[in-house]
């Protein structure tokens, strides 16, 4: 990546590779740099190497090749306890034989901080995560969400500038997870810390991050702010992985005026924005978001190509309607429409014409 040697980089992965067994690369040529204060999320399916990257940064795994730099200094040979990186583990890793307060003062004790100062810090950080009364409890006496807060507090209490979090909300239920997402983001912003956050939940990644790195098979597929990631996926993996997405396969017929005309395998011609295709004859997979599909004829421009579709299913979801259609021989094409007073509810069995703006339909790699 071109910006991997930027001057203001706080954390930097420089051509990092990692193999556990000498046969397979779990991380393949990772280049990543983030400035101070950024909230960066590593998003990817299970087994894509996210935890491995985090462990290399924390010092529990060594990079097989390449450099990891923290504040400009290579840290490959610095042991974990000297890196000063705060860490929140998926299972929280709260020490079961210590009370909450003892857990929190542990990192301060090993730094030989005097007792009064320790107590003040512990009290302060407990208040920061709104757990002021729980200092005397054992981790086992806390709920999942409370343990989560303590784990966060413990990573923050020794004022690390960089905090790593490995799927910290994975074990919580949906509602609590949303509260905690907000909470973590607020605290990170307030303290101005740099966060590298790992998750496989794309909603979490989109709502919390400044930038998201989408991992697959040991590589970063795309590194971009959430809106760009959602609206301009660079390849079909990212398009598939982030948000709901309709895909259609076909061949490029021609590219003219920045618009690609694609002949679908299931029949029909559509207009797309060429992203990974450059010339006629190439195979492509086109991607279109369900909420960008238009079925109201009046709102489609006259010269746009449209497709015939058969309505298979209509689901009322409260705020939106979700309609499943058969399009170009595929019967998993979904459109979402807002529940508004004038919104049309499509009847199953009926036929409609669908279309979209060419820039909403991205012709990606096959």
């Amino acid at each position, binding site marked *: 990546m071109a910006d991997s040697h930027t001057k203001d980089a706080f954390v930097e992965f420089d051509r990092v590779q990692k193999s556990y067994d000498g046969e397979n690369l779990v991380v393949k040529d990772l280049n990543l740099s983030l400035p101070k204060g950024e909230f960066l999320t590593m998003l990817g399916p299970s087994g894509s190497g996210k935890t491995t990257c985090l462990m290399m940064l924390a010092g529990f795994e060594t990079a097989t090749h390449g450099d990891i730099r923290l504040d400009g200094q290579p840290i490959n040979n610095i042991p*974990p*306890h000297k890196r000063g990186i705060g*860490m929140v583990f998926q*299972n929280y*890793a709260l020490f079961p034989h210590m009370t909450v307060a003892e857990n929190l003062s542990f990192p301060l004790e090993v*730094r030989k901080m005097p007792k009064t100062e320790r107590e003040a810090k512990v009290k302060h950080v407990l208040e920061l995560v709104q757990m002021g009364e729980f200092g005397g409890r054992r981790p086992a006496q806390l709920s999942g969400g409370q343990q989560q807060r303590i784990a966060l507090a413990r990573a923050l209490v020794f004022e690390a500038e960089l905090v790593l979090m490995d799927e910290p909300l994975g074990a919580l239920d949906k509602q609590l997870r949303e509260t905690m997402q907000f909470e973590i983001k607020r605290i990170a912003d307030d303290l101005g810390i740099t966060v590298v956050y790992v998750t496989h939940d794309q909603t979490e990644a989109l709502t919390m991050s400044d930038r998201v790195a989408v991992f697959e098979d040991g590589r970063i597929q795309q590194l971009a702010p959430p809106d760009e990631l959602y609206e301009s996926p660079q390849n079909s993996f990212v398009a598939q992985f982030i948000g709901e997405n309709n895909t259609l396969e076909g061949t490029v017929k021609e590219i003219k005026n920045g618009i690609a005309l694609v002949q679908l395998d299931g029949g029909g011609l559509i207009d797309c924005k060429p992203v990974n295709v450059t010339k006629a004859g190439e195979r492509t997979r086109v991607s279109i978001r369900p909420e960008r599909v238009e079925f109201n004829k009046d709102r489609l421009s006259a010269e746009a190509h449209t497709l015939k579709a058969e309505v298979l299913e209509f689901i009322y979801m409260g705020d939106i309607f979700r309609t499943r259609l058969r399009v170009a021989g595929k019967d998993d094409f979904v459109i979402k429409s807002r529940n508004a007073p004038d919104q049309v509810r499509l009847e199953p069995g009926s036929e409609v014409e669908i279309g979209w703006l060419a820039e909403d339909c991205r012709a990606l790699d096959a």
Partner: protein
Amino acid sequence: MLTTVDGKPLKEALAHAQSRAKRRAFLLVLPLLAFIIVSFIFPIGQMLYKSVNNTGFTISKDFGTGVSTPIMTNLAEWFEENPQGTDPDETAYAALAADLVVLRELKAPGQAGTRINYELSGSRSMFTKAARKAKKLEPPFKEAIIDLDEDWADPSLWQAMRTASIAVTVNFYLAALDRKRADDGSVEMVPENRQVYVTLFKRTLILSLMITVICFFLAFPIAHLMATLPMRKSNLLMILVLLPFWTSLLVRTTSWMIVLQSQGVLNDAMVATGILADENRIQMMYNQTGTVIAMTHILLPFMVLPLYSVMSMINPSYVRAARSMGATSWTAFRRIYFPQTVPGIGAGALLVFILSVGYYITPALVGGADGQLISNLIAFHMTKSLNWSLAAALAAILLGAVLLLYWLYDRLIGIDNLKLG
């Protein structure tokens, strides 16, 4: 009071609803319960009963007909009428003579003599001899009996007969603690050259403690390695650890002999490499060293297994968390890892200690004279001297010590903290 919808008390309704499940649960445990009662609780009860009740001097049982006849009744009567310390007079000797006649008829002098022999060794033959001549004895009985053997005038003998004339006694516990009744009935130590049991109890406890500590230091690293290695390698280690269980005791004993004896492999190797002069070969067999080495080998798995099971449950992220917070690996071990292994240490130590306190076969084979433990003496009294009451008393003291230990453990660490596997 809470009631169900139709007015029945809630407790009653619940009990009724659960009674079926309870009955079934009881039926499920019944076979094991019966087995335990027959094979464990009953024998232990018998043993405890034997340790405080010996009828050798009070009842004779004819094993052919199954009839039990009281013996030494006249003497018992005399002891009852005359308090402790009364010198035996003519009536006493007359009672003795009458009882000896009965003994002769019942063919029981040996049994009665044996009982007195437990308290006063060498007295068994006096009974058999006197009983043979009992019919011919004539008054005055005192002179007549003392004429047979002047030891019949020994006050210790009369003290022994007095205690033995009541079946229920704590004398075997006294004996098991190297104590006995003096002639006046008070408790005193036995002469120094006959004190064996207390020393043996002490030795048993000390050696067991030593074995436990050695096992702990050997097992801890292995268990840790097993808990952290990948499955395939840890299974291989597990097999090595369990190997002692799978080899026959005789094979093991033979191999210890080959390795440890003064002309054995280990000594030869040390002499060959010059660590040891030929005349300074170390005796590692048939003494305490042999007992400790062999028992450590056998009992090691009992320490490794609970430790392994506890350690494999400790998530590696605890230590990682500690390290990321700035703890050195030693601090992380001491403050985070080690405290979490305590339940396994407790379980392993308790198991090894209790097992080694009662271990019999290994010290018998490789212990020599000074490597014997208390259980070897229990076995001796069970099979050789046939003093079952003393054996039972020794065993009961051992059982008491183990229970005490268990209680202490519960008070200090808490039994619910024990993790056996």
